[in-house]
């Protein structure tokens, strides 16, 4: 195993058992994150990005959810086998998380200070005064003016962008090794989005925290990430460094994603091409490749078997029969 490796997820499967059937929200998730690196996770809504993140944190509501199989190696420990006590030491301390909607992610009846301080007191074994000092310091670091006063305010007294700053302060207060950011800017205004992303990037450079950034915006990926993971219908379909993703993407779905992106350079007059069709019903996945239905390059085998997660070039993983010798599967 790579010395630098912080997190490795292998063949993670998470299902939800509902009245309407079994929803296979994550069905074979593979990824790696190195220390201090930013991984972008892209894919349309329902592709299993958030479910994968929640599974890593073991925060899937059970029931109806269940992590069916897989391995989540974090810092040499399989989180899927860890006890609840171990997980509690890891959550918020080694792995922190920020969420899409800052309006609902903070508890409305507790002051923001209280909400930041409780993690500090829990993980850093700090007393109240010490924790409060640290919380004020964190609020200053994320750029909240008059932090000493604001710390006693309630979440509804902050704007959306400010609340996301509070969330970031909370998440980074215990110097986590990994920060999972689940679409942290989707709910914010465009101008605020850039500020928040810059802030995250600055803080990352200062503290060396690795980031798993879930987004559906390839522009953000190009700007902030070193590596990219593409997800489709619960599967990870491609994983590579950010340069290869844009220069030599391999999976037909990634091609589609890139083609549907507006470009502001010489090809500006090129038409946007949306990917035809709809993603499959997660309750009723096809026998073969999940993308086969919408794929322009499909072969007969694509509708019969699932493709394997293969390292085609060093550091470039793809799950597609275009790169797999027919009939030579090694499960």
């Amino acid at each position, binding site marked *: 195993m790579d010395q630098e490796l912080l997190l490795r997820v292998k063949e993670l499967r998470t299902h939800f058992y509902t009245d309407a059937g079994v929803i296979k929200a994550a069905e074979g998730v593979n990824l790696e994150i190195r220390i201090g690196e930013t991984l972008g996770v892209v894919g349309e809504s329902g592709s299993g990005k958030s479910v994968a993140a929640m599974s890593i944190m073991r925060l899937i509501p059970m029931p109806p959810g269940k992590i069916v199989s897989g391995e989540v190696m974090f810092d040499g420990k399989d989180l899927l086998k860890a006890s609840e006590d171990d997980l509690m030491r890891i959550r*918020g301390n080694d792995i922190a998380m920020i*969420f899409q909607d800052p309006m609902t992610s903070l508890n409305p*009846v507790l002051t923001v200070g209280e909400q930041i301080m409780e993690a500090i007191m829990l993980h850093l074994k700090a007393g109240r005064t010490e924790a409060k000092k640290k919380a004020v310091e964190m609020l200053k670091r994320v750029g909240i003016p008059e932090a000493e006063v604001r710390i006693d305010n309630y979440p509804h007294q902050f704007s959306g962008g400010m609340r996301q700053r509070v969330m970031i302060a909370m998440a980074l207060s215990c110097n986590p090794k990994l920060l999972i950011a689940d679409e942290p800017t989707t709910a914010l205004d465009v101008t605020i989005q850039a500020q928040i992303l810059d802030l995250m990037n600055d803080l990352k450079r200062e503290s060396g925290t690795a980031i798993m950034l879930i987004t559906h915006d390839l522009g953000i990926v190009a700007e902030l990430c070193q590596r990219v993971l593409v997800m489709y219908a619960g599967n990870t379909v491609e994983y590579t460094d950010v340069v290869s993703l844009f220069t030599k993407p391999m999976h037909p779905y990634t091609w589609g994603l890139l083609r549907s992106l507006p470009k502001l350079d010489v090809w500006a007059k090129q038409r946007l091409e949306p990917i035809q069709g709809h993603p499959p019903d997660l309750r009723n996945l096809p026998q073969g490749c999940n993308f086969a239905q919408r794929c322009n390059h499909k072969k007969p085998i694509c509708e019969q078997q699932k493709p394997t997660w293969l390292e085609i070039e060093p550091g470039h993983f793809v799950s597609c029969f275009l790169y797999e010798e027919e009939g030579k599967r090694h499960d």
Partner: protein
Amino acid sequence: MIRFIIRRIFQLIPVLLGISMLTFGMMSLVPGDPVALMLGQHISHQTMDSVRQELGLDLPFLNRYLNYLWNALHGDFGRSYIQHQEVSQMLLDKIPVTFRLAVAASAIAITFGVLIGVLSAVRQYSFWDTFTTFFTLIGLSLPTFWLGMVLQLVFGVIFRILPISGSGGEGFHLQYYILPGFALGFASMAMYAGLTRSSMLEVLGEDYIRTARAKGLSKQVVVFKHGMKNALIPVSTHAGMDFASLMGGTILIETIFSLPGIGYMLFNAISRRDYPVVQGVTLFLALVFVVVNLLVDISYAFLNPQIRYD
């Protein structure tokens, strides 16, 4: 905050006027002549006329209403036909018993109801959860007064550990309030259990609960620190209303357990057709209901910072 309270109090004025109008109007529902009812049949017309004049019953409707309102505002709720005592004095004498009973019922209902509700929300889909759902339905379907009788039967014949009747004379004797409190509070307990359960379930699905768990807080801290306060907001709104309606519902339980409170007094007044007492008790309990409601609104604003600052 002060402005909010003042506004709420002003909003009460039309409601209070309406309540007094309604209770006053009830008297006119009585078939026959109230004076004849009051004095009995064998009284001469002259006496009846003079009494009528004395009571102001010969005045037009509006005047009589204004008199009634004026008196009520001064704490005069009329005079009993039977005991010839001030209704307000009778009420004052009986309030402590009814108040204690309602407090006992509320305490039993809230303690056990919230506990059952939280447990079943935390263990959703378990046996305990199914049990709670059934318990809620049973609680809402049992006639409280029948439950009171069954308790009397069980504790009067099998476990003779708690008194099944009376209030134990002067002063406060807790043991006399346990069985009636339980019977009176049972339906409320079921309601609290159901309400807490659904409120807690809703809260546990909120994003900030996920945030709290992602912080590494234990399940207990998440449920009791982050969940409880939010989940109890709707429950506490209900607590005040429920307390007031428990006070209104004491009539059956006090009658069965022979507790000398307002309800028992009302029962006796009903059987003797002592209309001013019925009217006075109704007005009084409606006022309690309204005042408690006001207090609930204010405390709700205290509990929920979002309202406080708006």
